[in-house]
């Protein structure tokens, strides 16, 4: 178990070091997320007023879109010089590599979400920070589910043809439940009269889906990555 975490940490550190040299992934993903929210605000703010009830959906769509972009790029990078094969050749548990890549992506998405949430709250006049703990729980569980499936899929697509198209094609149908729960939970929180029991239900459901998805991803990562 300790060995497992050590390997995962090594993978995270490797990714952080690569990223700290170029900051490519961070800057491009954050910029994409910002333009995403801006495009939505041009579409949904009319006459100086935001369309009612759009904020939750926009927040999650922006996260899903920039998450997909980050997932694609994070593994595109592993293709250079056969880096992924080198990683997989290492005599360590494969699921630890998966966990390491996932943790790196979660760190990146946390930065993106911090920015996007503030932007959505500001541009759409949404009281997102009224229940900060619940919002945090929704965002972190939702991102975990989304990125958990996404890391598996984009890792296995590294070797496939037309992977740029196939990643969203595969990822969105499988993760729609997570996005629905995230949007519904957030919508409940920013409602003028928030129904906190409903919010708790959505958080519980997210937890449940995450547990199932992550178990499946950890279980299938090794055989799927074996050529």
């Amino acid at each position, binding site marked *: *178990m300790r060995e497992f975490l050590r390997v995962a940490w090594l993978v995270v550190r490797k990714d952080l070091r690569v990223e700290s040299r170029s900051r490519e992934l961070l800057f491009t993903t954050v910029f994409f997320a910002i333009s995403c929210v801006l495009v939505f605000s041009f579409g949904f703010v009319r006459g100086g007023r935001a369309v009612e009830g759009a904020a939750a959906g926009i927040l999650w769509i922006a996260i899903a879109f920039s998450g997909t972009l980050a997932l694609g790029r994070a593994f595109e990078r592993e293709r250079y010089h056969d880096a992924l094969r080198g990683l997989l*050749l290492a005599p360590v548990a494969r699921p630890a590599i998966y966990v390491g890549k996932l943790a790196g992506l979660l760190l990146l998405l946390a930065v993106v979400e911090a920015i996007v949430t503030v932007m959505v709250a500001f541009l759409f006049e949404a009281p997102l920070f009224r229940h900060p703990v619940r919002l945090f729980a929704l965002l972190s569980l939702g991102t975990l589910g989304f990125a958990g499936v996404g890391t598996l899929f984009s890792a296995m697509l590294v070797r496939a043809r037309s992977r740029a198209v196939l990643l969203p094609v595969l990822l969105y149908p499988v993760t729609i439940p997570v996005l629905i729960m995230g949007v519904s939970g957030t919508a409940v929180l920013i409602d003028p009269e928030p129904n906190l029991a409903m919010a708790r239900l959505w958080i519980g459901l997210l*937890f449940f889906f995450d547990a199932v998805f992550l178990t499946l991803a950890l279980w299938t990562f090794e055989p799927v990555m074996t050529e």
Partner: protein
Amino acid sequence: MGILRLGGASRRAASRWGVLRVLALGLVVGAAAGMAVAEAAQPATTAAQDGFVPMGDIPPEDQMPAAPLVAAAYAAVWAIAVGYLWTIWQRLGTVEAELADVARRVGDRDGA
């Protein structure tokens, strides 16, 4: 390209990993139990959700509009099933023709 095989050390690591898998499954069960508790009290509705009850008389106004829908549903099921069977048959024909052709070429070459 079958070079990516696990070594002994990682096998052991993988077996230790089994513990975490069990843990994850435990999480699933726990979450399921939690969900059962959290089942939201949602408004009860009317339209025959908990059981279908037989009815004696058929109101005449109910028969007419529903009949085309039932017929359409039955027709759609048949159309899809037959249509799909037809596509299998078509594809099978193409593949088998090609198969016979290639088999003949292989036979010709071996014979010559």
